[in-house]
C-alpha cells in the first residue's frame, strides 16, 4: 500500500470520529438527548466503538498489501483455514438479525422467538449436505461460476447476478436499520447520519481490503460476538444465582403475556404462515450469496465442509445463548420504567430505541456503561462486518459476473474487474442506506426472513437443481428462477410489511407475512416444467455435460486452479 492511500484512510477515520464527537458536543449544548439512560455512558461507548473501527481499519490496510490478484480480492487467495472460515461464515450469518432481532423477539414473544432462532439454525445442515462441497469443487468465486458450468454462461450469469443483487438488497435493509438504531441509541445521532456512517465505513472495508479484510473483520467480529453474547447471558444467570428457575419465575411475573411466554403464541399461530417462514429460514441460507462465496476462501471441498460444520456449531451455541438474553431482558428491564419511552408505555413495544435494542439495554442494566459500550460496539461491529460481506458479494456479482463475463465477454484485465467491483460497492452502499430509511421500524429478524424467502425462491432452486438434476436446461433455470424471484418479490410487496406498513394501504392483498410457501414451489415447478419442455439442441448438450460436472463435483478433478494458486 502506498502512503497516499494510508493518509486517505487516516483522514476518513478522523472525519468519522469528528462527526461522532461533534454530535456529542451538540447534545451537551442543550439539545435534549433522546436516550436518557445512555447520556453518561457515551464517552466509554464512543471509545469502544472508535477502538473497533480503528482496529478494523488497520486490518483492512494491512490486508490490502496482500490483495493483488482477483483471486485475492474475491476469495482471499483461497488461503483461509477451515476454522477461520467457520468463524467468518458464522460472523456473516450472525447478523443484526441474530443478536438484536432474535433477542428482541424472545423479549417480546418468548418461545416464538426461539422458534425463529431454530429456523435460522436449521438452514446449516442443508448448506452442508447439499451445497458446500459441490460448490467448492465446481466454482471459482461466485455461485454463477457453478450454474454456468454447463448452462449458457451469458444468460445464467445475468440472471444470477440480478437475483443475488436483489437478495443482498433485501438482506442489507435490516442490517442498516439495526446499525442505524444502535448508533442512534448510542450516540444520540440522528438515524439518517448513523446510516450514512455505516455506509461509508462499509465501502472503505470493501474497496480497500477486499475479501482478505472482510474475512478478518468477520472473524474478529464473530469472536467478539460470541464473547459478548456469552458474557451477557452469563451475567443474567449470575444475577439469578445461576438458577434458570428463578429467572423464568421473574419473567412470567413481569411479562404482559404471563406464563404464556413459555408457550407457542401468536407469532406462529397460523400453520400455513409458520411453514412459509420455516421454508424461507431453512432453504434461504443455502441461497445467500455472501455465505456461499465463503466456500471459495478455503483450499478444497474438505475445507468447505469443515468450515460449515464449525460455523454451524457457533450458530448453534448462539441459539442457546440468545433466549437467555431475551428472557433476561424481559425479567430485568420490564420492572424498570426508565428503559421505556414513558412509564405507562407498552412493555413489549415501548422500549427506548425500539424493541430491537433490548439486548443493549440489558447490558446497561447488568454491567453499567462499560458493558453497555462493549455490547454496543459488538452489535455495531457485527452489523458493519455483515454489511461489508454483503456489499462484497453484491460487488462481485456486478464486476465478475455482469461486467467481466457478460459485458466484456471475459476480455478484461483483473485490474479493471477489481476497479468495477469497487465502483459497484460504492453504489450498493448508497442504495442500501436509502432503503434503510424506508424500513426504519420493522423487526430486523423478520426482515431477514423476507430476504431468506427471496433467496429460497430463486438462488436455492436454481443452484440445487443445477447441481443434482441432469435434466435442467438454461431456459428452465431462467424461467423457473425468474418465476420464483418475481413471485417472492411481488408477494412481499403485497404482504402487510410493505403494502400496509410502508405504503399505508388498509389491508394486505397477500395474507401471509412470508411468501416462500408460494414462491419456492413455483420456482421448482417452473424449472422442472420448462426444462422438460425444452427440446433445443443446446438443452441436449447441457444435459450431456452433466457427467463432466458430476465428476468434478464429486471428486474435485479438473477444478479451476486460479483460486488455489497462492500458498
Amino acid at each position: 500500500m502506498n502512503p497516499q492511500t494510508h493518509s486517505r484512510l487516516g483522514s476518513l477515520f478522523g472525519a468519522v470520529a469528528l462527526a461522532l464527537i461533534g454530535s456529542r458536543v451538540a447534545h451537551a449544548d442543550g439539545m435534549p438527548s433522546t436516550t436518557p439512560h445512555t447520556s453518561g455512558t457515551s464517552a466509554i461507548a464512543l471509545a469502544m466503538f472508535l477502538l473497533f473501527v480503528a482496529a478494523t481499519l488497520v486490518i483492512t490496510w494491512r490486508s490490502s498489501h496482500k490483495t493483488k490478484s482477483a483471486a485475492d480480492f474475491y476469495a482471499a487467495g483461497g488461503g483461509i483455514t477451515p476454522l477461520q472460515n467457520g468463524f467468518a461464515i458464522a460472523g456473516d450469518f450472525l447478523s443484526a438479525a441474530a443478536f438484536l432481532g432474535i433477542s428482541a423477539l424472545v423479549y417480546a414473544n418468548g418461545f416464538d422467538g426461539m422458534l425463529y432462532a431454530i429456523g435460522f439454525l436449521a438452514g446449516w445442515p442443508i448448506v452442508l449436505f447439499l451445497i458446500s462441497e459441490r460448490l467448492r469443487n465446481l466454482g471459482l468465486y461466485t455461485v454463477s461460476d457453478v450454474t454456468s458450468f454447463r448452462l449458457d454462461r451469458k444468460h445464467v450469469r445475468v440472471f444470477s447476478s440480478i437475483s443475488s443483487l436483489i437478495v443482498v438488497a433485501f438482506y442489507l435493509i435490516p442490517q442498516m436499520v439495526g446499525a442505524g438504531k444502535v448508533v442512534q441509541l448510542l450516540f444520540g445521532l440522528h438515524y439518517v447520519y448513523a446510516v450514512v456512517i455505516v455506509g461509508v465505513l462499509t465501502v472503505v472495508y470493501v474497496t480497500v481490503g477486499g475479501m482478505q479484510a472482510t474475512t478478518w473483520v468477520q472473524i474478529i467480529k464473530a469472536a467478539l460476538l460470541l464473547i459478548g453474547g456469552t458474557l451477557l447471558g452469563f451475567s443474567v444467570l449470575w444475577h439469578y444465582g445461576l438458577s434458570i428457575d428463578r429467572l423464568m419465575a421473574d419473567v412470567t411475573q413481569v411479562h404482559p403475556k404471563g406464563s404464556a411466554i413459555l408457550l407457542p403464541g401468536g407469532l406462529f399461530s397460523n400453520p400455513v404462515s409458520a411453514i412459509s417462514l420455516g421454508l424461507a429460514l431453512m432453504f434461504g441460507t443455502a441461497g445467500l450469496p455472501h455465505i456461499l462465496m465463503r466456500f471459495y476462501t478455503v483450499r478444497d471441498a474438505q475445507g468447505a465442509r469443515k468450515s460449515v460444520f464449525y460455523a454451524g456449531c457457533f450458530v448453534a451455541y448462539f441459539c442457546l445463548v440468545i433466549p437467555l438474553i431475551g428472557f433476561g431482558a424481559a425479567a430485568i428491564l420490564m420492572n424498570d420504567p426508565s428503559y421505556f419511552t414513558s412509564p405507562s408505555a407498552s412493555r413489549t413495544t415501548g422500549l427506548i430505541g425500539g424493541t430491537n435494542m433490548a439486548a443493549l439495554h440489558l447490558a446497561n442494566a447488568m454491567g453499567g456503561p462499560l458493558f453497555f459500550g462493549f455490547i454496543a460496539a459488538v452489535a455495531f461491529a457485527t452489523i458493519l462486518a455483515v454489511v461489508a460481506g454483503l456489499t462484497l458479494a453484491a460487488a462481485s456479482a456486478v464486476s465478475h459476473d455482469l461486467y467481466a463475463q457478460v459485458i466484456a465477454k471475459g476480455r478484461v484485465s483483473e485490474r479493471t474487474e477489481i476497479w468495477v467491483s469497487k465502483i459497484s460497492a460504492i453504489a450498493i452502499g448508497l442504495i442500501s442506506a436509502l432503503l434503510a430509511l424506508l424500513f426504519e421500524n420493522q423487526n430486523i429478524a423478520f426482515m431477514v426472513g423476507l430476504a431468506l424467502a427471496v433467496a429460497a425462491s430463486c438462488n436455492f432452486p436454481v443452484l440445487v437443481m443445477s447441481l443434482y438434476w441432469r435434466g435442467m436446461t438454461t431456459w428452465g433455470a431462467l424461467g423457473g428462477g425468474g418465476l420464483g424471484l418475481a413471485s417472492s418479490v411481488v408477494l412481499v410487496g403485497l404482504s402487510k410489511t410493505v403494502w400496509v406498513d410502508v405504503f399505508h394501504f388498509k389491508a394486505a392483498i397477500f395474507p401471509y407475512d412470508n411468501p416462500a410457501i408460494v414462491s419456492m414451489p413455483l420456482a421448482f415447478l417452473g424449472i422442472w416444467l420448462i426444462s422438460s419442455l425444452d427440446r433445443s439442441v443446446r438443452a441436449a448438450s447441457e444435459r450431456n455435460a452433466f457427467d463432466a460436472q458430476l465428476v468434478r463435483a464429486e471428486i474435485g478433478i479438473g477444478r479451476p486452479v486460479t483460486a488455489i494458486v497462492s500458498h
Partner: protein
Amino acid sequence: MESLTETSVRLITANPRFIALVNARARFRWALSATIVGLFFGFVLMVGFARKFLETRLGDGPFPLGFYLAIGMVLSVVGLTGIYVHRASSLFGRMTDELVEEMGL
C-alpha cells in the same frame, strides 16, 4: 489440474468405484437432509397443531415440553452435521482416494 476430456469423463463415470462413491454419498446426503427437514417441519407443525402436547409439563421444572424439544432441535443440528463431516472425511474421503489412485488422476 486441467479440464477433463470427454473420454476421461466417460471412463470415470463408468468406473465401479466412482459409481459406488456417487451412490453411497447420494444415499447418505438425502437421508440426512430428509431427517433434518422432517425434524424441523415436524416441530413447526407441532407448534401449529399440537399445542397442548407442547404445553405438557415435565415434573416441577419451569419449562414445558416444547422448550426441551427446541433445545433438542439445536443439539440434533449439531449432531447431524457432525456425523456428515465425520463420514465425508473418513469413508468418502477414502473412496475418493482409492478412485483417484486407481485411475491415475
